[in-house]
């Protein structure tokens, strides 16, 4: 039987500060890429250098063809001498527009060495808020000094632990990275789900309970880090099966609590959950726009860069618009209209794919299934009615918004119906779209926004079993998805109808090794017939041998 254990890296760090920081370093190598320092998943290429005894000439180290495309982090330009000293120490400077408070700062180094020391200074403007001189002992260097209200940090790297070396930085964090292992983790459960039609965009969740002997996560410990916990701080979960790493996903902090002085519980959600906290209002009135174009506009608002769309879906075209909603809901509308599913992958990215996929089925035998099993049949739906929308811009100008009295200030005004703005009675139109207008007023008074509303007409497309009578009809109706037009309504209705016909749902337990949601499986059922399906849910106990409650439909 496989040997399993789990590790969780928790970033108690301010992601906003990291995202907006302006970064520079003195004595820097020209190949350096400051943006790489912001990337939580970045790892430098193993680039051989002419530093003394840097690599063995045994043929195992590749020389990159093009240095300019290799993944550098940030390197110092000069090397240390035979004593590991620089003539002039490199100084990393990070400046932010906002003020931040953190429990410290973490620099992650790369290569085969790290600085002897760091000298860190925190500023607000030109006022020094604190300094700290720290000895480095490893690649991950936490500068343990809580400072409030800073907007600038300088870190001087004093020498290198190994002579004749550059400083090589691959990551920075405005806070501390905690590593939890089997010794600290009381329980860790991950729930992964996918909806085959995107009727709902599912959010994967992590529930983590840790034993924190230092009481750092004791809410009432004045020297603890609870003060610095923020929503959306990242957890990276890694499983190990017989020594091999299995990435188990990236999760973002939602809630936290203490159940004793040294027991802390964290609930976190996947990137789709993060998207549910961001409002999307910048939809266009698209006409035959590709799915990739629409998804890109949503992801840009959500700040999600790591996603992929199956090529057959990406090139599909959609017409219509998305009303004001969260980015998660917006992505749900696109996926539903494009007959696609959305998977939060364990590498932290989002994959938009049509399920069931064409991938080979994995066989699940009786010898793998454990625990309580059940096979159930979903309610019969033998008719699907989908509403298609067509939008035309009115030729009559109308008042989109009218208010007699508004104080001076900036207002985000939203419209019930999509509209094209033609003008405003006064003030400055800072930005606008079919769903909204952002207006700045320098004095109080009335405000009118003029424009042309889009009128909509609807057509209902139905797919149903042949020969149905009214008394036998069990219909699912789908409306208010304004990216469904006459060009895709029939195919959406057929897709949803077909999905409703996959009514058999199997539940059982397996010890997960490589299985994941979205996989096609061929199950030797408890009813002695084999049944194919797609894994739609895995509820995994990561401290209990990766035993998972598995749902297949």
């Amino acid at each position: 039987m496989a040997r399993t254990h789990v590790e969780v890296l928790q970033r108690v760090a301010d992601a906003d500060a990291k995202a907006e920081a302006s970064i520079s370093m003195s004595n820097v190598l020209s190949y350096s890429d400051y943006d790489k320092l912001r990337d939580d998943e970045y790892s430098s290429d193993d680039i051989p250098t002419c530093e003394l005894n840097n690599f063995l000439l045994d043929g195992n180290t590749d020389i990159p063809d093009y240095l300019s495309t290799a993944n550098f982090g940030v390197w110092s330009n000069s090397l240390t001498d035979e004593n590991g000293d620089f003539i002039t120490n490199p100084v990393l400077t990070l400046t932010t527009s906002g003020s931040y408070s953190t429990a410290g700062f973490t620099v992650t180094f790369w290569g085969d060495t790290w600085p002897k020391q760091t000298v860190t200074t925190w500023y607000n403007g030109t006022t020094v808020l604190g300094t700290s001189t720290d000895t480095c002992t490893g690649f991950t260097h936490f500068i343990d000094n809580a400072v409030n209200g800073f907007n600038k940090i300088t870190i001087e790297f004093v020498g290198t632990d190994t002579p004749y070396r550059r400083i090589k930085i691959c990551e920075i964090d405005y806070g501390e990275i905690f590593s939890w292992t089997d010794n600290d983790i009381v329980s860790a459960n991950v729930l992964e789900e996918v909806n085959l039609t995107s009727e709902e965009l599912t959010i994967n969740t992590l529930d983590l309970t840790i034993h924190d002997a230092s009481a750092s996560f004791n809410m009432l410990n004045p020297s603890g880090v609870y003060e610095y916990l923020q929503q959306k701080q990242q957890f990276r979960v890694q499983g190990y099966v017989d020594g091999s790493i299995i990435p188990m996903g990236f999760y973002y902090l939602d809630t936290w609590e203490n159940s004793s002085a040294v027991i802390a519980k964290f609930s976190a959600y996947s990137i789709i959950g993060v998207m549910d906290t961001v409002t999307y209002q910048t939809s266009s009135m698209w006409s035959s726009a590709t799915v990739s174009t629409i998804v890109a506009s949503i992801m840009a608002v959500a700040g999600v860069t790591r996603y992929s769309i199956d090529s057959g879906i990406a090139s599909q075209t959609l017409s219509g618009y998305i009303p004001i909603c969260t980015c998660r809901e917006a992505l749900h509308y696109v996926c539903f209209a494009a007959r696609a599913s959305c998977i939060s992958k364990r590498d932290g990215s989002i994959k938009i794919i049509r399920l069931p996929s064409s991938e080979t089925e994995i066989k699940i035998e009786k010898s793998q299934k454990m625990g309580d099993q059940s096979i159930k049949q979903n309610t019969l739906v033998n008719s699907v009615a989908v509403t298609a929308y067509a939008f035309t811009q009115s030729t009559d100008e109308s008042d989109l918004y009218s208010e007699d009295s508004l104080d001076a200030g900036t207002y985000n005004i939203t419209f019930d119906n999509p509209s094209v703005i033609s003008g405003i009675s006064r003030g400055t139109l800072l930005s606008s779209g079919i769903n909204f207008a952002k207006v700045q007023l320098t004095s109080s008074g009335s405000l009118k926004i003029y424009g042309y509303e889009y009128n909509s007409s609807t057509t209902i497309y139905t797919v149903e079993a042949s020969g149905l009578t009214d008394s036998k009809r069990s219909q699912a109706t789908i409306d208010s998805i304004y990216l469904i037009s006459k060009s895709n309504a029939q195919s959406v209705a057929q897709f949803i109808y077909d999905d409703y016909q996959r009514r058999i749902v199997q539940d059982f337990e397996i010890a997960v090794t490589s299985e994941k949601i979205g996989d096609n499986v061929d199950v030797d059922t408890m009813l002695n017939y084999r049944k194919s399906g797609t894994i739609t849910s895995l509820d995994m106990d990561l401290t209990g041998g990766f035993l998972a409650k598995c749902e297949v439909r």
Partner: protein
Amino acid sequence: MENDILTIDGTTYPVNIVSLTETSDFQDKYSEQTENFDLKRELGGIFFNYELQLGEIQNQTTALALYEKLHEFTEFHTVTLPHNDGLQTFQAYITGVGRPLKSRINETNKWGGYTITFTAKSPQITS
């Protein structure tokens, strides 16, 4: 039995051991039968737990010291106990202490030997 085999937190107590039972507790991460009744399990660790029965302690100083040690308000002790050909030292917690009252004469209690259960804090054998 030799009287030097009970060491708690670095102090060896000169007591007579009437009996000592070492129990190996095999704890699983999971243990489930598959549909075809094949047992699947992942072993989490093997714990060595001990139950000791001591003889009466005649020396009152030793008796008091051991009483206080056994009832110390602490979560874990470092204990040294027999294992295989020698001794092993490990972290354990006391899950039970018992002793019979043998007599009460002239307002003086006379207690019999202790029965003590030590449970290992963490497994001594893991994968």
